[in-house]
């Protein structure tokens, strides 16, 4: 959807940030792309959103987006969540950008907590909002110590965490933010996506950019980069599985959320990725959904 003239605010530079700030962020992004998975500090700016609402992702998006881009914003898989709506409205206002809810139509997707089910393409950039970029933070007390371990590629502490989980619970219990080794070198947080989404990062055709505003760090996974979720040979990494399919579209390949269906005792599971679910329902329905207002 292209914004109406009265939606676009005057008095701002394109995409809110001034050009010098964008250049600074882009330089950090270039460095991050050159060293896949390595956290690069950047001079995070005040954004008109509270920290924790994706200011890191916002700045990354603002720095790489152009007037011809089509933006999609998702939060927990849906474009309708408050956070997604306000970020989308923000870019419509300060950049006059076209936005979409369709993964296939977007050239840039900013997201929190999910990666779309629809495979991304070389033409797309995925921007992930990251609250805590340091995967070792729970395991080593100080930031300097974590940076040393990265420099030494010494990730024994993370394997110890996996070891302790298996010893205690028989399996690795991390459901979200499951650490990955990027390009065989740097340990990185995939952001709080479910481990279900980790395999989508491996050899992805799209560029993935990760922005952490509060921690002032960003990192990248370039297209076609090896991304391995940490595991043991005899306890291989596994994604979540469900015994049922999506109650709406029947998909057995997507990440499902449990929803209350009203009826007592009735558990219902539906796709967390609402666009994916809708697209599947449209494809199977004889009549196509009426086109949403003004999509180009």
């Amino acid at each position, binding site marked *: 959807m292209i914004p109406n003239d009265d939606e676009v605010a005057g008095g701002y530079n394109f995409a809110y940030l001034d050009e010098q700030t964008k250049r600074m962020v882009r330089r950090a992004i270039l460095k991050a792309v050159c060293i896949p998975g390595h956290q690069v500090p950047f001079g995070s700016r005040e954004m008109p959103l509270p920290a924790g609402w994706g200011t890191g992702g916002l700045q990354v998006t603002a720095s790489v987006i152009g007037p011809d881009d089509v933006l999609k914003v998702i939060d927990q898989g849906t474009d309708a969540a408050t956070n997604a709506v306000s970020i989308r409205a923000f870019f419509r206002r300060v950049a006059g950008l076209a936005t979409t809810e369709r993964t296939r139509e977007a050239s840039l997707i900013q997201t929190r907590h999910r990666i779309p089910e629809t495979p991304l393409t070389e033409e797309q950039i995925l921007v992930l909002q990251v609250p805590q970029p340091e995967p070792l933070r729970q395991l080593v007390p100080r930031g300097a110590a974590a940076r040393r371990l990265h420099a030494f590629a010494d990730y024994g502490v993370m394997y110890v965490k996996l070891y302790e989980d298996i*010893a205690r619970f028989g399996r690795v219990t991390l459901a979200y933010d499951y650490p990955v080794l990027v390009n065989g070198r740097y340990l990185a947080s995939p952001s709080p996506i479910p481990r279900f989404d980790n395999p989508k990062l491996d050899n992805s055709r799209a560029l993935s950019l990760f922005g952490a505003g509060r921690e002032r760090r960003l990192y990248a996974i370039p297209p076609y980069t090896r991304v391995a979720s940490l595991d043991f040979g005899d306890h291989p990494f596994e994604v979540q599985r469900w015994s049922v399919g999506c109650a709406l579209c029947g998909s057995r390949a997507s990440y499902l959320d449990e929803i209350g269906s009203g009826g007592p005792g009735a558990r219902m599971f539906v796709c967390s990725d609402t666009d994916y679910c809708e697209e599947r329902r449209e494809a199977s329905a004889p009549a196509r959904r009426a086109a949403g207002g003004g999509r180009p």
Partner: protein
Amino acid sequence: MSRAVVLRASGLRKVFGGRVVACADIDFELAAGEVVGIVGESGSGKSTLLRCLAGLAAPDAGTVEIAIDGGERVDLWQLDEVARAQALRSALGLVHQNPRDGLKLGISAGGNVAEPLMVSGIRHYGRLREVALDWLERVEVPRRRIDDLPSTFSGGMQQRLQIARSLAPGPRILLLDEPTGGLDVSVQARLLDLLRSLVRELGVAALIVTHDLGVARLLADRLLVMLRGRVIEAGLADQVLDDPQAPYTQKLVASMLRI
């Protein structure tokens, strides 16, 4: 001695704050499988020397060569930090006086033993378990304690666990800084027995710091006597203890005999 040298210190010097000469002009070699004791009063520079050898403190002068995989010797302090950590990882183990300095108290006993193996790239849980259990047994920690936190262990058991952790990666060199220091006498004896048999069995070269000449006699083939940062006497352990040459060593031996 014809055995290969696994560690060599030459002209080692470490000064603190421009004034305190903790180590000076230290030269010695450690041969494969040999046990060398370092004795000397508190403050004579024993721990500082060990820290320089273990890559924890950069000497102000001199070199530390250690044998790495394949038998080649590298100059530890000429390597960059990453290469140094890598060389030390597989070549050298360090046992601190206080087990809390060498263990991670927040992770299980098994995790403590297995961590260095994970660092060196073992990615098979079952294998890690097996090795951890084997090491617990070797250091006389009951196998059923494998998932317990070391903070629930007695001091002696913690120390034995620390020894297992430092030996598990199979280093050629083991450095021990007063390993029996904080323990009760009865517990010390058991630990010494264990250390002696482990070191012999594994053929690891050990450098053991102690202020206890009894420990030195029991474990060491050779002794270095340190005073104010310098090695003032060196020789076969029995020779040094039975026929000390330096006046300081004579006093040291005499004072120990009186106890």
